[in-house]
């Protein structure tokens, strides 16, 4: 008969075994395979991925680097990714913090706003995209014609002047809810004694936000800022949901450009080594950058004194 502790140990190990196996296969194994794939090519004669000859070992890396510098579509996608990042940093995060603060301060209808703003996070992404698409491409032109007599209203999701703006607006809309829940949760942990102290000192709301709330939620904010650096090369926005593999090139993010190389109607095996090499290059750029950002944020950010 096994001892109780042994039984518990077996139980725990069995429960953890399956997710651990998944981790080894779908993270370690796949990433290891991706590293190998970056130095291979798809051999049409054997339908296999074979190693590149030693004389041309860095073929895929050279191609990716060349395209990042010289290909107008790839360069453009870097710019668009940067725009999405800037919008996130300077608009989305501040707006989320401010909205969360309003909810934390229990402004009238705070509960209602909290629910409504969080709804996009719990509704299916495809439903949201379809809702947005139909509203923008059917309802808006109809409203423009009926109320403002504007005929031939542009297709905002395709028109070069507006397509990127629509993607940004959509990203702001759906990104709001998840951020608010995390920020309000962090704010709710602020000790009442500190808020009381702030009242006694005569702090107004903005001073409370700046001197009390921001330092307290800084660790949460740091997490968001660090993750956004990580996501720069990976995030494709919601482009695939909107356009499948047919997004206009003037909306491409870096993440989308490389995603459709390996998934969807335009992908082929020939592109897999190229995409694998790009993943490694982006890791080499993003990893130290992420660590640096984390270090700087932790070193120079506000500290909460006991």
């Amino acid at each position, binding site marked *: 008969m096994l001892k109780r502790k042994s039984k518990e140990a077996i139980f725990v190990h069995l429960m953890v075994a399956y997710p651990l196996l998944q981790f080894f296969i779908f993270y370690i194994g796949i990433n290891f395979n991706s590293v190998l794939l970056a130095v291979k090519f798809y051999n049409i004669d054997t*339908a296999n991925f074979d190693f590149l000859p030693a004389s041309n070992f860095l073929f895929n890396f050279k191609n990716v680097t060349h395209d990042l510098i010289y290909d107008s579509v790839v360069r453009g996608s870097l710019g668009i990714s940067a725009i999405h990042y800037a919008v996130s940093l300077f608009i989305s995060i501040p707006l989320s913090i401010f909205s969360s603060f309003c909810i934390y301060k229990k402004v009238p209808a705070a509960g209602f706003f909290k629910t409504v703003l969080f709804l996009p996070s719990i509704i299916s992404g495809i439903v949201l995209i379809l809702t947005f698409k139909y509203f923008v*491409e059917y309802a808006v032109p109809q409203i423009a014609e009926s109320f403002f007599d504007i005929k031939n209203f542009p*297709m905002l999701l*395709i028109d070069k002047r507006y397509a990127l703006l629509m993607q940004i607006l959509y990203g702001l809309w759906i990104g709001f809810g998840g951020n608010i829940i995390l920020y309000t949760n962090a704010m709710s942990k602020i000790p009442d004694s500190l808020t009381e102290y702030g009242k006694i000192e005569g702090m107004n709301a903005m001073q409370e936000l700046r001197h009390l709330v921001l330092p307290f939620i800084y660790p949460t904010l740091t997490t968001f800022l660090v993750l956004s650096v990580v996501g720069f090369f990976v995030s494709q926005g919601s482009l695939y949901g909107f356009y499948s593999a*047919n997004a206009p*090139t003037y909306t491409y993010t870096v993440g989308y450009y490389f995603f459709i190389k390996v998934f969807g109607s335009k992908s082929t095996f*020939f592109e897999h080594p190229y995409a694998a090499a790009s993943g490694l290059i982006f890791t080499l750029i993003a990893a130290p950058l992420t660590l640096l950002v984390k270090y700087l944020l932790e070193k120079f950010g506000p500290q909460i004194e006991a």
Partner: protein
Amino acid sequence: MKKITIKGFAYVSALAFSLCFFAFSFVGCSKGGAEVDETKTQLYIGNFDGGVGSAWFDEVKRLFEIKFADAVFEDGKRGVQVWIDRHKDNFAGEVLFSRIESARQDVIFTNEINYPDFATKHRSADITDIVTEKSEKITDDLGNEVLVSIEDKMNKSLADYYKWDDGKYYAIPFIDALYGIVYDAELFEDYGFYDDGPGPDGIRGTIDDGLPQTWEDFKKLILLMVNSGITPFTWSGLYQYYREAFMNSIHAGYEGFNDYLLNYTFSGTDDLLGEITPQTGWKLQQQNGRLAALKVAEFIFSSPNNYSSKAMGSSQSHIAAQEEFLISATTSNRIAMLIEGGWWENEARDTFNEMGRKNSAYSYGNRKLGFMPFPKFIGGSDISDQKQTEGLTLFSSHGRTVVCVKPNTTKMEAAKEFVKFTTSNEILAHLTVQTGVTRPYAYNLTQGQKDKMTPFGRMMWEIVSHEKTSVAYNMKFHSGMYENSSYFENWPWVAKIGNDTDADVFRTFYNNRNMTAQTYLQGMQAACSESNWILG
């Protein structure tokens, strides 16, 4: 007590979850109520459930089971029971390549695949024996009974493609996807849009008589439509390949079969450009057929009244475009033409059925709809006359849809018989009658069969089967197109204009109202020039 309760709850939850998992697995294996007859060989057929659908298989299954009721394919079993599995992603591309050897299906009717991958790795069975076996009796043009093989009947360019380097066949082509213009024939009659000319094929007495014969005629017709309050065109804004295929169809129609095919073989002589080799393939960007197609795009986008305001929308899927076109007949804003592929009518059955519920005149088969081959470029002032003035060159984009057999099936004989059966004249005709879609083989329809077809299907058949019609397929005949797939994915229409690179002609013209065909053509020649041509 509390610890035992928590652990007990965990055990019970895990057990319940596992039981649910297995229960759902068995549900997933249900055969939809039909009984499995263990005395018969079980043959599983996978069908890419796209525009062609699966309904046509019902009759095929019935006839096959009758024909082989006494066949012995496995020891201890007599006859065959056929099961049709319908799916999309499982029967296409890289997914199929990965899973075919472990799939339960013995025969698969696929969407587009990379045939070289399958042939090289033997991921589909060698079916050379049934493809080359002269086993079907037909009556030739002289009235003699002859035996023919699948290979004999197959479109010649596709037969060359599917016969692999080792001389074997590992798959055969499935369907044609002929792109062009679907038009509302009733609207044409109501408004008197037909003329008394011979139509695009230039031959009197054929089914396209009365349609605009030349591009100049067509432009006048489009303007007449607009002046009559009719919207000439709609199309799918979501899927670029419909618009690209339309452009390809104009290009092919202008160049003719031989010159158009150079764009995929890079081997031969162009009437105007001279010898084309893999090293000089970039010259094909100078083909006048490209300019012709760009002239069409330029004209369409010269006025927003020429196309539906929804056409360029990203929410305008192919189904939405079909609906818009069909339903417009009941509104004050009628749409005359839809840019689509030959299977569209079968795909739009739900819309037909819905409309038919209110008025049977709009139900499937009752609407008078037609297929318009693109008119000829003759007698225009802004582009040279095309060489082919009689007959048609049509463009098909689905040469890479195939029928293949699982390489390790234990029912190889039954599987091959099924492939052979579905390529017999009887079943080829059945598919065309049922769906309006043609297959790239030589076969006949009786007058009785044609009478059962929809007006659109009948017109499509008459045009495709005409002796002076050729069909060009966008097959990657040159291996360099596979090896450099990223380059050639967009190469037919990619253009570098200023700082922008795009391969979507319609979108470029939509975004740049001042864009001209010449400017776009120059952009194409900049994107694919001698200096950046990839085939060395």
